[in-house]
């Protein structure tokens, strides 16, 4: 892919990722978020977080299966969008549901397991967002950076559990997320097991002998 095409593709992603937010703001301004706008905002931003988390996790398997290596170029923006919507999700909860009360938020979080799990998901994304720049990748070194960024698995799994836990009875949607996530993680496990085994070197062969 040419550089200018890539830049354009990234712009496409940037703009389209912001569309749900733009429509939320527009609908809110026109009082068209339905009977329970607070809930609608919290639910939608949470859903967007999960969608972007899953998309982020889908990049590597898709790249390996299709051989389209340029897909990796979108992973950072997808991940940052997940973090962005996750922050909005928390802000909506903090402001609309908890009335900006820090103690009210903390006391509620301590009592509700699904809020704790959601908090873990969001916190897990913080170091990922902070270390998402090229400079940070260099500073950490590729290997350490990749290890750190396995936190994305924590965020995605905790995010889906958080969703599942607060649904009243109809768990179909959280289960769809769980199934997609399971496939994406399963793919990683399989490729991990099937990775080429290191060929014994003379030294290890000698030791074994």
């Amino acid at each position, binding site marked *: 892919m040419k550089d200018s095409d890539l830049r354009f593709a990234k712009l496409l992603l940037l703009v389209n990722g912001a569309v749900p937010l733009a429509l939320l703001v527009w609908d809110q301004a026109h009082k068209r978020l339905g009977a329970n706008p607070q809930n*609608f905002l919290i639910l939608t931003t949470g859903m967007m977080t999960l969608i972007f988390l899953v998309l982020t996790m889908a990049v590597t398997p898709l790249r390996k299966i299709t051989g389209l290596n340029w897909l990796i170029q979108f992973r950072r923006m997808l991940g940052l969008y997940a973090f962005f919507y996750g922050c909005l999700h928390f802000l909506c909860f903090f402001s609309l549901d908890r009335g900006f009360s820090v103690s009210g938020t903390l006391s509620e979080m301590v009592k509700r397991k699904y809020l704790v799990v959601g908090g873990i998901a969001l916190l897990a994304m913080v170091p990922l967002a902070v270390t998402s720049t090229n400079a940070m990748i260099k500073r950490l070194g590729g290997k350490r950076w990749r290890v750190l960024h396995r936190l994305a698995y924590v965020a995605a799994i905790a995010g889906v559990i958080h969703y599942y836990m607060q649904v009243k009875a109809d768990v179909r949607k959280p289960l769809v997320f769980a199934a997609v996530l399971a496939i994406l993680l399963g793919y990683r496990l399989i490729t991990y097991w099937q990775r080429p085994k290191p060929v014994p070197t003379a030294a290890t062969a000698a030791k074994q002998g």
Partner: protein
Amino acid sequence: MKEADKISASEITDPAVYFNRRNFIRTGILAASAVATGFVYRRLNHPATGEIKTAKLEGVITTSAVTNAASGFRVDEQETSLENITHYNNFYEFSTDKEGVASAASGFETKGWRVSVEGLVNKPGVFDLGDLLKISPPEERIYRMRCVEGWSMVIPWAGFSLSKLLDVVEPASDAKFVAFETLLDPRRMPGQQGDVLNWPYVEGLRMDEAMHPLTLLASGLYGRALPPQDGAPIRLVIPWKYGFKGIKSIVKIKLVATQPRTTWSEYAPNEYGFYASVNPHVDHPRWSQATEQRIGESGRRPTLMFNGYEEQVGHLYAGMDLRANF
């Protein structure tokens, strides 16, 4: 074949035009993709709206606020809009999406509706809806409605006390509870084609709860016949209990000697009890019940004991451990 060096300068696209054209196409793609994303978003995630076209109810009795204040028949709070009451519903027989019930339930046919009143009564019978509604003229009752999920409304219902129907059928002395049942018809109630709950929906009340004047057999709201999404053609409203006790689209009322099974308490016994009285001091295991989101308001308001009907119904539960009997 034309030689490359024979292409005249005038035939070569000017780079400025070429790049402009490319920018033009890209802008088009950008705009089109944003519109497409917006369209998908709207299809998947839109709040419901729509008009209510049910028939006007004739002869609804509206008595003065003064005489009704003490009885709890008329709460003096801002009524929730008809639009919100009819587009934010928990009615899993149609959809588990509160904003999707209205469209899923539109066109629900209630012609020929009958309600069987049976069990431990002296005069059991199957009532045609019209006959049932003639038992007593509809009265306007403005009740708070508190959902177990933590939101609430104020709804001007129309109906009469359930006790008037029970008086007609004459409960036997050994009748201790009343069991209710919703229509079971997966064709008309598409939500019943799935197994999210154990169909049909069943609910129950203790005899003294059922006989309490606040317990309403409702057939309308805002002076109109009940829209399908709110439980047409006839439903129960028990204002001091969480909304799920208010069973909708009732086809059977049975008086029994022992506590009947109820859908939600069977689904999750640790989360939903048989009594399910509104109680800000007893939290749902997964969320607090201390406050509520009043639909149409911003911020949360404190939840009242027995949803503000303690004066009227508190005595029914005297000496009962409300933490154990949640």
